[in-house]
């Protein structure tokens, strides 16, 4: 084992690309002089790199810019009723302030009817968010706040205290509620959409360039977001769901428990420093008393799921943990990987032994490193395991 750790196979690409520190590069070079095995590895790495360098650069089709321009124009036309407040934000110059003020007076005079057609942009959203929950709001107040387009998909919905059967706007601070047989769709700024199932209630907390945030008080929502990670957030009574580029279903019951099921990409659940990374095909329960439980794949054995729930939320202790380990399949190393970071030192040995039995320990990951929760090793192991998980 000691001999093995002296080999430098893992860092040969970084050595070749000059990505190692001077000292590491010196040690690697010296090792290569002595070690035939690593020299053979280095020859392979060099050949792979030489081959990859032959990858040709392709030329984008010449007509593509005009196609993109057409699509940009189409988007611009959709926003033909551009908010004067946007112009206010785009420049700090005094004459634009005056122009924006005049436009605001215009909007107030001609009422909310015109403004209902306005697609707010991130620029105007940032200046106008109001993060606190409010009660009923007047049309005039709504024109002052950023809002998202909402649409009733079935039946009547309530938006900001008003009943709606077609389309409308959900302003920051307002709520949207569905009844027994009604459903709604919310356009999340320009980054995606949320569908709200019957008997659900959401509130728009914030919408800015850097953060779009809903609160799901009860019911079920389906989100489909196409945006950089950490731009869309959903508060629930028991955790915060952070979009990492994904689609998912989130459900909150009357006791404040929530259930997350991810159908594309990854979602992170977090509360009070407790985190769960939930990928496509996985689920996670959260409870107000505990926060996020341990995530598991939706095809995990029933006994594993029941034991995991007892371990996470009902003080199931060692018995529940042993049951989880007993019923775990190789794919459930995903759940065990999360458990490593949630159990005490004694239990961590049990979890690690079971993981090794199920999927083995890859090159570059040591038992001691895992037991000490070395972040790089855990990340490397997670990386190696994704062929087992997906």
């Amino acid at each position, binding site marked *: 084992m000691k001999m093995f750790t002296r080999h430098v*196979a*893992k*860092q*040969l*690409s*970084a050595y070749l*690309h000059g*990505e190692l520190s001077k000292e590491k590069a010196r040690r690697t070079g010296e090792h290569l002089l002595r070690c035939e095995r690593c020299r053979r*590895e280095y020859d*392979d*790495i060099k*050949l*792979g*790199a*030489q*081959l*990859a*360098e*032959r*990858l*040709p*650069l*392709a*030329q*984008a*089709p010449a007509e*593509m*810019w005009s*196609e*993109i*321009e057409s*699509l*940009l124009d189409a*988007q611009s036309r959709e926003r033909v009723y551009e908010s004067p407040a946007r112009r206010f934000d*785009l420049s700090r110059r005094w004459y634009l302030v005056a122009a924006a003020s005049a436009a605001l007076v215009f909007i107030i005079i001609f009422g909310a009817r015109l403004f209902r057609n306005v697609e707010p*942009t*991130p*620029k105007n959203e940032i200046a106008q968010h109001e993060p606190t929950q409010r009660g009923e709001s007047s049309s005039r107040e709504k024109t002052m706040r950023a809002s998202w387009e909402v649409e009733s998909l079935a039946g009547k919905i309530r938006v900001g205290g008003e009943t709606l059967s077609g389309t409308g706007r959900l302003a920051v601070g307002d709520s949207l509620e569905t009844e027994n047989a009604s459903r709604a769709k919310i356009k999340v700024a*320009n*980054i995606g959409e949320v569908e709200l199932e019957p008997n659900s209630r959401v509130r728009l907390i914030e919408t800015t*360039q*850097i953060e779009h945030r809903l609160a799901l008080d009860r019911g079920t929502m389906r989100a489909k977001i*196409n*945006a*950089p*990670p950490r*731009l869309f957030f959903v508060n629930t009574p028991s955790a915060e769901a952070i979009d*990492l*580029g994904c689609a998912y279903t989130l459900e909150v019951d009357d006791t404040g428990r929530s259930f997350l099921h991810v159908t*594309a990409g990854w979602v992170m659940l977090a509360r009070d420093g407790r985190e769960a990374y939930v990928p496509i095909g996985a689920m996670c329960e959260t409870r107000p008393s505990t926060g996020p439980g341990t995530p598991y794949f939706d095809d995990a054995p029933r006994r594993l799921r029941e034991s995991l729930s007892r371990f996470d939320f009902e003080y199931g202790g060692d018995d529940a943990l042993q049951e989880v380990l007993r019923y775990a399949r190789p794919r459930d190393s995903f759940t065990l990987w999360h458990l490593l970071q949630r159990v005490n030192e004694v239990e961590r040995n049990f979890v690690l032994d079971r993981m090794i039995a199920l999927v083995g320990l890859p090159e*570059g990951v040591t038992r001691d490193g895992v037991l000490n929760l070395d972040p*790089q090793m855990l*990340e*490397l192991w997670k*990386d190696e395991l*994704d*062929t087992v998980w997906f």
Partner: protein
Amino acid sequence: MNERESEADVLEACRQGDRAAFHLLYESHKDRVYSIALHFGGDPSMARDVTQQVFLKLFTTIGQFRHDSEFTTWLYRITANACIDEQRKRKRFVPFSPALEVSQMAAKGSQEERYDRKQMADAVRAAIAELSPKLRLPILLKYVEGLSYEEIAEALGCSVGTVSSRLNRGHKMLARKLSHLRGQFAAGE
């Protein structure tokens, strides 16, 4: 004015909605974005869709770019996500097509040399297409765009160690798949 200042000016103009600045930005990056998408998916129509999505996304969300990372890192994060999303949408991986036309094939040299280069490029593209997406993307970001390990890590949302490990595995798999070409490099090609 240095290159960095110039790019900052173009980006600022883009934030203000300046279409000419968008065009400039597009011209600077279009071939590399298209190449990554093409080599990732192996299909020109997918590459075209991905490139359009990337630049539309870029232009509509440029206000969210916060200068706390390099612009290219942000651009290639969008590109990587778009490649993965498009592949998921199409459900299955579009098989490598040997008929792809790429600019380097029109490079100078004798007909025989051009043929050899094309053969080599086709073999490399086919081998890269067979890598898993997680190994393919770091290879493309390294060899098409020339990003550093740190930039690749930021673009893919993983650690530098992970990038290093994936490139290592990618290189070794390429060498294994194309070991019959070793002689050409040993001969000083």
